[in-house]
């Protein structure tokens, strides 16, 4: 029993060691940079896991919040590089003086605050508008998807303000560090890895709290929760805002890691891809979201290096297979394999069958629209 109790934290520690010690030692800088990129997506996925897996809100437009965070960061970096002049893209877009919207982003504290506050604010407003009216399930999914589409069009249209389709790129300096240097990139990797770990722990805490229980209850029976005197709209809005904040933070980390933010990253397809990743990893456990994002990111990179055309087939097929055969994702498969193994072992030894290891903790996993 004691051993079992140790398992969870033990594995978490092992993963932490792998991510913080082994990976940086073994991976060359280019691959380490890629891992950092996957982890940025993992943070968004964690937010989706929270909103969708726990809260039943299928947010198909997380790219919007990723973008808001990313652009906030990128605007700051651009202004630092410009050293009082206009950022390069404004010059060729014919903008003559710095737009008012940009001015406050010269201040690093404001920019960093906006990374999280901007997305949360917008998510809160949208959440209040939508959840109060009891727009949910598929309606909510389609609305967030349309939001992503509209957001991208808006960004692309405001070229002088946002860099248009090109997005913002060509950054040199991150808080005094040379961004091209391997040491900076290594430091960024650690920052992303640690942020992922901390956010995971935080989200887990939230899910285990009273609030988390209420959230799952809202997912499984919103009207019933309302009859009990709670306000489901508030619970959902708070969760949605938290997941938006995570996406914003991920976007801000993504910018220095990859060196670009552009509308192509924020639209309907990239947003959906992340949802897919969460489903593949296992949406009902927060760790599944992280796992899925890293696995899918890695698969995409290695697949496109081997045979580019196959990626859409593989992604599509994976998706169909996961949804039909393993709706709980990789983690769900792992868990049932473990249960099956345990059952077989006990059957052979003739012992009475013990309850599956996770039976008491397993939550209702049927989803209610």
């Amino acid at each position, binding site marked *: 029993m004691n051993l079992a109790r140790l398992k969870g934290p033990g594995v978490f520690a092992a993963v932490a060691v792998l991510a913080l010690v082994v990976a940086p030692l073994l991976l060359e800088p280019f691959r380490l940079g890629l891992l950092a990129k996957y982890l940025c997506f993992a943070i968004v996925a964690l937010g989706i896991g929270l909103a969708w897996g726990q809260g039943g809100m299928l947010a198909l437009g997380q790219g919007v919040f990723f973008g808001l965070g990313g652009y906030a960061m990128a605007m700051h970096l651009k202004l630092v590089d410009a050293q009082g002049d206009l950022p390069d893209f404004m010059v060729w877009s014919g903008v003559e003086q710095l737009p008012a919207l940009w001015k406050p982003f010269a201040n690093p504290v404001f920019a960093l605050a906006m990374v999280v506050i901007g997305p949360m604010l917008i998510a809160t407003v949208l959440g209040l508008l939508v959840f109060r009216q009891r727009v949910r399930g598929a309606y909510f999914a389609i609305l967030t998807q349309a939001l992503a589409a509209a957001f991208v069009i808006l960004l692309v249209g405001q070229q002088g303000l946002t860099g248009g389709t090109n997005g913002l790129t060509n950054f040199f300096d991150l808080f005094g560090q040379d961004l091209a240097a391997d040491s900076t990139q290594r430091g960024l990797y650690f920052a992303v890895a640690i942020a992922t770990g901390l956010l995971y722990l935080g989200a887990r805490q939230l899910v285990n709290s009273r609030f988390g229980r209420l959230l799952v209850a809202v997912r499984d029976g919103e009207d019933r929760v309302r009859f009990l005197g709670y306000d489901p709209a508030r619970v959902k809005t708070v969760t949605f805002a938290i997941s938006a904040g995570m996406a914003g933070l991920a976007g801000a980390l993504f910018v220095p890691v990859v060196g670009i933010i552009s509308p192509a990253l924020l639209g309907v397809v990239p947003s*959906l891809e992340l949802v897919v990743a969460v489903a593949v990893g296992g949406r009902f456990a927060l760790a599944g979201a992280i796992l899925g994002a890293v696995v899918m990111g890695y698969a995409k990179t290695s697949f496109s290096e081997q045979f580019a055309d196959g990626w859409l*087939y593989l992604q599509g097929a994976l998706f169909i297979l996961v949804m*039909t055969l393993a709706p709980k994702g990789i983690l769900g498969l792992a868990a049932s394999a473990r249960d099956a193994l345990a059952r077989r072992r006990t059957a052979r030894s003739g012992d009475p069958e013990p309850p599956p290891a996770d039976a008491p903790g397993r939550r209702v996993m049927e989803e209610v629209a």
Partner: protein
Amino acid sequence: MEAFLNQLPIGLSIGAVLLLIALGLTFTFGQMGVINMAHGEFIMAGAYTAYLLQDLTGRMAVIVALPVAFLVAGLMGLILERTAIRHFYGRPLDTLLLTWGVSLVLQQLARDLFGAPNVQVQAPTWLQGGIGPLPYNRLFIFALALATVVGIWAYMNRTGQGRRMQAVMQNRQLAAVSGINTGQVDQRTFFIGSGLAGVAGVALTLIGPVGPALGTYYIVDAFLVVVAGGLGQLRGAVIAAAGLGLLNSYAEFWSDASLAKVIVFAAIVAFLQFRPQGLFVLRSRALT
């Protein structure tokens, strides 16, 4: 002023396109709660059907293809329903992701079968020219949309099959205990809904590109029509499509195409504040 007046028929003709692409969805979505992201690819299948028939029929392909595309896309839908979707009833969000996977595979398949570049479908010569601001091909789409709506209305209200379909839509369990084979009704609905996508695809060859990405250009708009119109509501879909078409046309007239899309989205969110279930609601006391 002339330009301003021209926007009225133009808006209605945009609405006709929206209606055609969304009509099938209102039923698959409305009756079965299936969010079919592959609907766009069924539209694409219809367009490619017209392309393939061209070799046989020349410029008449667009006309001949209408029934053929209905069958092709309908069968594709039926296969999808039988093999995958029927395991997913009651889990709409899962079907969304599942069908998105299907849509990716179909897009790549089209790319491998027909090549990545757009192909050309020649319009019948008698569709060249037009009246006022409306070319004949727009009028053709308008008439097609109208005919489809009338056809569906008649099917729903004048045939036993259609009535059973309505019954399942209103209360699946009650319909089942009354002896309706709901599984069969589902199959039929999916066949018709997907087939309508094929018809839309044929019509779209008159005005847009025919390529592997065809479906992706229309799918979001189609869903917005369904959301605004209300699930499974023929009336709602018609009014929503016309409304969005007009809004689009005038918003673009006064601003530009990019802003028009944003305005339409904002209008829909605002509209859902007043009518969260869309224009027309299926009354239900079911607890969700």
